């Protein structure tokens, strides 16, 4: 924390360590997008810079919202997003196709994106209201489960397996740290493992194909396994030191598909090598660690639970993307937050960070009060 007399109080109170980390990640993203466009600010890097600045301002703004107000609007907000999800589903039904967004003219709104932080907040609020003695009872489980599973199933049928899973993981994390009995989670994990074959048989054709290709990408290197194969080639060929900035042949010659969105990490590592990749992973890990510490140090139960869920959301975001890019998970279409080109992931993560920063500030000020 910068504590100099020259810097005004409100500025000095900002969590600067986090801001530097986020700035580092965003810079990596922008220079990689600059390279992905063949060494040009357009069409990605400039637009992304503006988006990041805008959403960063939004995040800082959110951090000034008092916890009490957030608590108050949590349930209504959750309800509004749920209605929007149903609306999207209906439009999609009418339009006879998968639809994930509502077109407001100036922006395409993806309600499922807002659901990621919202589900954490609503569960944190639920367990905040629930008397401690009821946590291990039936009434401590079913409303929470409903709050998670209703949006989860709505998003799943869009179909958007990646986002649905993230909503589920955020919610389950809050339930886990809220102190629900351990056997709930163990038996759920067991049931999930048993249900996997059934789920597989119910998946859409393209989803099933992705899973199969994940298990054996070399089976069809020019067809559907192309993404994973080319991504691994890009990462592996970078070696320890990388091919040098603007020298990535995989991305520049279009062998790497989606090199500016989902596979941006491969574009980055091809040019910056193992060194660059490890640095980026560490930066993300530090952000998550900061979030987990916010949760640990929070003074209210709502703040503790919400911070844990939001941190997990950020963690899950980048982990699943990196696992996918390095061939450890099937291609589910989750971008690398703050690095991939596109606004929605930046927005979600900045909202999460804004909420975390707010919690952090209030736990600090409250602690000083006594």
């Amino acid at each position, binding site marked *: 924390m910068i504590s100099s007399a020259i810097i005004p109080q409100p500025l000095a109170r900002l969590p600067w360590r986090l801001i530097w980390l986020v700035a580092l990640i965003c810079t990596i993203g922008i220079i990689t997008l600059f390279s992905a466009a063949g060494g040009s600010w357009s069409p990605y890097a400039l637009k992304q810079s503006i988006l990041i600045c805008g959403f960063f301002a939004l995040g800082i703004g959110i951090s000034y919202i008092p916890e009490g107000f957030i608590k108050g609007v949590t349930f209504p907000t959750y309800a509004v997003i749920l209605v929007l999800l149903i609306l999207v589903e209906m439009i999609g039904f009418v339009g006879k196709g998968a639809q994930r967004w509502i077109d407001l003219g100036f922006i395409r709104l993806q309600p499922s994106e807002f659901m990621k932080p919202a589900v954490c907040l609503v569960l944190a609020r639920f367990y905040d209201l629930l008397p*401690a003695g009821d946590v291990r009872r039936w009434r401590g489980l079913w409303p929470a489960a409903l709050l998670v599973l209703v949006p989860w199933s709505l998003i799943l049928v869009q179909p958007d397996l990646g986002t649905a899973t993230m909503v589920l993981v955020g919610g389950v994390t809050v339930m*886990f740290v809220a102190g629900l009995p351990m056997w709930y989670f163990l038996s759920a994990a067991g049931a999930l493992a048993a249900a996997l074959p059934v789920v597989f048989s119910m998946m859409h054709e393209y989803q099933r194909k992705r899973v199969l290709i994940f298990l054996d990408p070399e089976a069809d290197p020019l067809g559907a396994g192309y993404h994973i194969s080319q991504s691994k080639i890009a990462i592996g060929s970078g070696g320890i030191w990388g091919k040098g900035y603007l020298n990535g042949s995989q991305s520049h010659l279009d062998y790497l598909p989606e090199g500016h969105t989902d596979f941006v990490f491969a574009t980055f*590592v091809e040019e910056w090598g193992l060194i660059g990749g490890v640095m980026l*992973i560490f930066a993300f890990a530090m952000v998550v660690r900061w979030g987990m510490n916010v*949760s640990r140090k929070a003074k209210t139960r709502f703040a503790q639970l919400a911070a844990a869920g939001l941190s997990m959301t950020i963690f899950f975001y980048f982990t699943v993307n990196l696992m996918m890019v390095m061939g450890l998970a099937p291609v589910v279409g989750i971008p690398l937050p703050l690095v991939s080109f596109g606004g929605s992931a930046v927005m979600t993560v900045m909202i999460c960070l804004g909420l975390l920063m707010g919690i952090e500030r209030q736990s600090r000020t409250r602690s000083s009060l006594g």
Partner: protein
Amino acid sequence: MKASRFTAAHQSMTFSRRMMLVGGAQAVFGGVLIARLGYLSVAQSEHYQLLSESNRVQLIIVPPRRGWIVDRAGKPIAINRSDFRVDIIPEQLSRPTETLRTLTQILKLTPDDVDRIIKEIRAARGYQPVQVAENVPYDQYAAITVRLPEMPGVQPMRGFSRYYPTGPAVGHLVGYVGSANAKEYEAEKNPLLITPGFKIGKEGLEKTLEKSLRGEPGGQRVELTARGKLIRELEPKPDRSGQTIQLAIDAGLQEYAARRLGEESGSCTIIDCLTGDILCMASMPAYDPNSFSDGIGQTEWRMLSEDLRKPLTNKVLSSLYPPGSTIKPMNSLALQAAGVDPDEVIHCPGGYRLGNRFFRCLGRHGAVNMRRAIAKSCNTYFYAMGHRVGYDRIAEMAKRLGLGQEFDLQVVSQSYGTVPNSEWKARKYKDNRRIVERPDWTASDTLNASIGQGFLIVNPLQLAVMAARIASGRDIQPALVGRHEKAAPLLGLPPEHLDVVRGGMWEVVNGDGTAGASRLLIPDVEMCGKTGTAQVRKIVGSQRGQSGDWKYRDHGLFVFFAPFNNPRYAGSVVIEHGLGGARAAAPVAKDVLTYLFDRPQAMKRLAELETQWGGTLAERTARRQANFEAISKANAGLSA
């Protein structure tokens, strides 16, 4: 109140514990990510760098020039002629429909061609060119070059096509080339094979020497995007032409022999009887390898394969004949080896009685010794002597002189026939007992084999090798490729035995023997030989195979060597259904040998004959080709 406070404390403890679990799980995942990244970019780096390079850099293949095939003096037998071709690079094609229409107009493409081109363009990936036409005449090539600016993606090029200056004369010898088919590509998986204009050997030496003739493709190395767009050109890789291969063949002799065979269906083989070099191996009639290399029409193929004179068969290697009397010199060596005195006289009353069967001779020769028996081709002598020593001992000599042997040659296939003996017959008929054949060797089997009929069956190359081994007494091995100077080791036959046989063969031509009419008209050079007449089917009554249907007439054979006093050349001539060796085969041998010693005399003789046949080989081939095209056109007209 107490319970509630306890629960709240308990809850806080649970929270801390579970936060640690969550943090721990996150740390584990982070570790996995870094480990995976390290594995990919350190342990697997080399592998992926290679893949990345093979993505980035591609080779636009420039086919190598095929090696020449030359004769023993360096005279070309198969060379490359430059021609013009037109390809399309699908990636650069901007207006496919208009471009194809223009090309169709200029090159006069058939609808079939256009269909093929469209199909190949659709299937093409990246920079792989698609062939539009090859062997394009210069004016069409020029027309396309002029209109190139309006047809991006079209690539007129100079290419090479295979050319055989002597055409059919070397057809069976060198074979031909053609585009690789799907099966050949599957077997090799070499992208060179599907490069437009690239040809591989399909038959004969072109096929067997493919490895040396092909060379190494070169190419322009280019950096391409995933969609096949050219980014920049890198350093080109030079191609390496195929090796020039020298054959043992004497191209002039080969051509002369092929021409001298004329309209007959037959073969002529000449071997250097000291070294084994095959100087000529002509089989006629033959296909024109030039027309095969351009892709042969269906009509032409059908007419060639239905021709009774079998222009698609290499008669030197793949046709088997009963050798007839040509094996009598070999028999004579076997008899002497078995202890028969060459001066012993046998009385020939016109045949030989074995039990109640009478085996005929061609005449009544009276008292004959071994030399006279060869000169007059007396069957009675060889019946009697063969019966005395038994055929197994003769078979041994036959094998020693090359009959039934498969030679180590660079050829696609050779049929090596049968030298029968008692063991062979037992093996063949023991399990496959037919009523007419008994598994034990009979005296009449011996008698038939002794005059080169019955089970004995050989190819013309073996006959030539036999003649060469008798001529030089050396264990020569026939060779097609390379020029050999070293004389082969001696066979170890007693010189006095050989002298008797050679003397007999001298008399055949230069005495009062069967081939007296084919004496060489060259001072100090005398040809020795032995005629043979092989029955095509069993003699039925008075039908002796000397008249009637062409396809039932006897084959005429002749084995020979020259000069008598210092043998250098030996060979065989087989004229299918030529009625007799003296009549059909020996005159060919005489002229071909004359070519080696007195070229003008031989050419004069050939000119006289070719006037009778209606033109030179080249003229007759051109006429036949025109005929094929006319029939093919008529057929197309019918089906349209």
